[in-house]
């Protein structure tokens, strides 16, 4: 290669790499998009902390909000807990079911968590992680919004807020069964 061409080529060759690294600032390595959107939600049957069975299939036709949590998940699960209870109180009579699934936890701390926030919606432990893997859960808290037809429509990674809850639930309630 002629010296002239090389003169320019050498420094310029560096530029694409730097551009790629700069692009890296726009990505978040911890936010993995879920492949489950638009797909049917996996059915499951769990036994709640109060002993009653919870089955996803039985809830077809309702909007289901599935929240994965753990008592050791500080501070996010603790931050979102009041929002969940509020959301439950607001929508339980409108055909929305909120289910909490407790993963990788021990029974006592889990019950204490529930008692602390006075959760009245059904909560069940997922002892072997079958359900959490079935939903591609990789951290807590994560919340899934399932529409009346049983399809996963939205996944919230991290603590949920009143606004997000309202926004997603209202959207899905407006849709026909």
């Amino acid at each position, binding site marked *: 290669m002629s*010296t002239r061409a090389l003169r320019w080529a050498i420094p310029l060759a*560096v530029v694409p790499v730097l551009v*790629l*690294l700069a692009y890296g600032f726009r990505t978040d*390595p911890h936010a993995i998009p879920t492949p489950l959107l638009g797909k049917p939600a996996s059915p499951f049957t769990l036994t709640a902390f109060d002993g009653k069975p919870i089955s996803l299939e039985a809830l077809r036709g309702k909007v289901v909000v599935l929240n994965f949590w753990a008592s050791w998940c500080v501070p996010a699960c603790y931050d979102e807990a009041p929002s969940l209870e509020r959301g439950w109180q607001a929508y339980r009579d409108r055909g929305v079911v909120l289910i909490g699934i407790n993963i990788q936890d021990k029974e006592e701390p889990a019950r204490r968590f529930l008692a602390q926030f006075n959760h009245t919606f059904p909560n069940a432990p997922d002892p072997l992680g079958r359900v959490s893997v079935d939903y591609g859960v990789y951290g807590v808290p994560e919340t899934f919004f399932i529409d009346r037809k049983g399809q996963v429509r939205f996944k919230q990674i991290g603590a949920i807020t009143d606004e997000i809850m309202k926004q997603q639930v209202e959207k899905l309630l407006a849709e026909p069964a």
Partner: protein
Amino acid sequence: MTVGAPEIGYALTVIGFALALWGAGAAVLGARGGRPALVTSAERAAVGAWALVSAALVLLAYSFLTFDFSIRYVATNTNLGTPFYYRITAVWGALEGSIILWAWMLGLYTFIVVRRYRRRQPALYPWVLAVMLSVLAFFLLVMTVPAPPFQRLDPVPADGRGLNPLLEDSGMITHPVALYLGFTGFTVPFAFAVAALITGRVGDFWITTTRRWTILAWYFLSLGLLIGGWWSYHVLGWGGYWAWDPVENAAFMPWLTATAFLHSVMIQERRRMLKLWNLTLIILTFSLTLFGTFLTRSGIIGSVHAFTQGSIGIFFLVFLSLVMLGAFSLLAWRLERLRGQSELDSIFSRESAFLLNNLFLIAAAFTVFFGTVFPLLSEAIKGQKVSVGAPFFNLVNIPIFLALIFLMGVGPLIAWRRASAENLRRNFLMPVVIGVAGAALCRALGVGNLIVLCCMGLVAFVAATIALDFWRAARARRRTGDGWLDATWGLALRQNRRYGGFIVHLGILVVALGVAGSQAWSTQTEATINRGASVELAGYTIRFDDLQPVEESNHFKVVGTFTVSDRRGPYTVLTPAKKFYPQEQTPIAAVDYRLGFMEDLYLVLGDFARDGSHATIKVQINRMVSWLWIGGLILTLGAALAIVPEPRRTATRSRPEHAVVA
């Protein structure tokens, strides 16, 4: 405004930054205008900056030791229960502290440069000083703006958060120190390279002057990598020493290019070739050290090592861009002086072996780089997140490393310029035979894996070449009357570079053997057993005896007691534990192990029942892992030998390898 440790520390940092910046500017002006007064002023600024950084470091350590929670960094990384020695190592345990450590080492090296080269290299020296002070200024800038270690915390909390429990380990004392000594060490050869480019003195001068720096930096980097492996092995609880984690890769890449650089400068010294290439290599190596720190601190690639983000990533990317574009532009500017007169006599020569060595090392570095940034590329172009991990890196790198092992045997013994058939036969016939025999022996011992067989054969081949060379040379000396011991010792000292290099190669061989052996022959199992029951693996019986809670100064742990027996009877009692730290969300596994020369017994406690009635235990028999650490020791000896100053004699370029004809 309250004036306490945070304010004092911050003031020290700011003044230090100002001094370094002034010094860099003064050095540049002094060099350009030929004004020694400015250069002297820059020197004083350099010494002053280092003194201030040292003071800041001491202040930080003091704050840690006295639990000064008014400093945010102290409050985040220690609490009242942290043991005393960990309070000191916590100084560099997180982002801000790591920068201050880096800056301190840079300051130290700059100080040494001032002392050593002020008189000896009047032409290059001012520019070297300018470059080093610029880099120092950058790190001090980082300490001032995005990552200040001396931020005040208001109100002062009663107790701190605590050190990351994974860092409460002896590895924490040595790993970052060794690694950073390596990283920062490459600043010096880089500074000399830039000085050479600016002044146009692109001959061998800058290389011979910085030879020892390069070896030392390379050695510390190797040490840092090995200690990192050791730390991973005995703390992280997965029984492995290398995970191809992006940050591990970030430290490995400069090691690869530095190794290539170490070798290819030998060609330049001998044959005045490859000037352009050597300059490129050192620029790449230094850039990769910056890239490594960028990767750890920018948050663009998630990693188990990663410190947190913030704007610091942008600072590093901008600086990295300036360094790379600037240095390569200088290179391009001096292109004519660097090209031309490359001559090779034959493909079968040491020069070719070194070229191949460089090729494979750079290929490995490129592979690691490409694999590390590919997830980013995939997301940028296809919008899809993928992972690139061990299966990829192992697949591509293993053949490259095998080829490098082969070259380790060929390189040192093949003749410069042209290797005759006689030379090849004399030097390699026996080692090749031994290599094949070694592989055959392994096959006979039951090894089926082709890669392991190749590795063993190659290692035997290389070991034989080293032994052959030592023996022949010592025998030659013996003919003049020395005993064997004297002959070998004298040989090693007189040609310390060569024999230091051999010992380093030997160390690498031992590490390679350890890697191959541990991959091929380690075994493991996992089981949930009741109290009193046992699990068996590879001739060992591990019986679950007990589970006890224990309270420590800053954490609570549950310790399992396991009696291990082999065929002969009870062998040892291991106590793996699960540690619960208040500041951590999930428990940390505390592994217990018993190290051996050929095999390590390794126990990880998994889940357990509250009442201790049963527990999940993971048992690993890791074979030949100790060879990695032993290899590291051998490497240390070799590097030490290679840096030993030569006895004062008239400097000759050629070593006594050609025939001495009266």
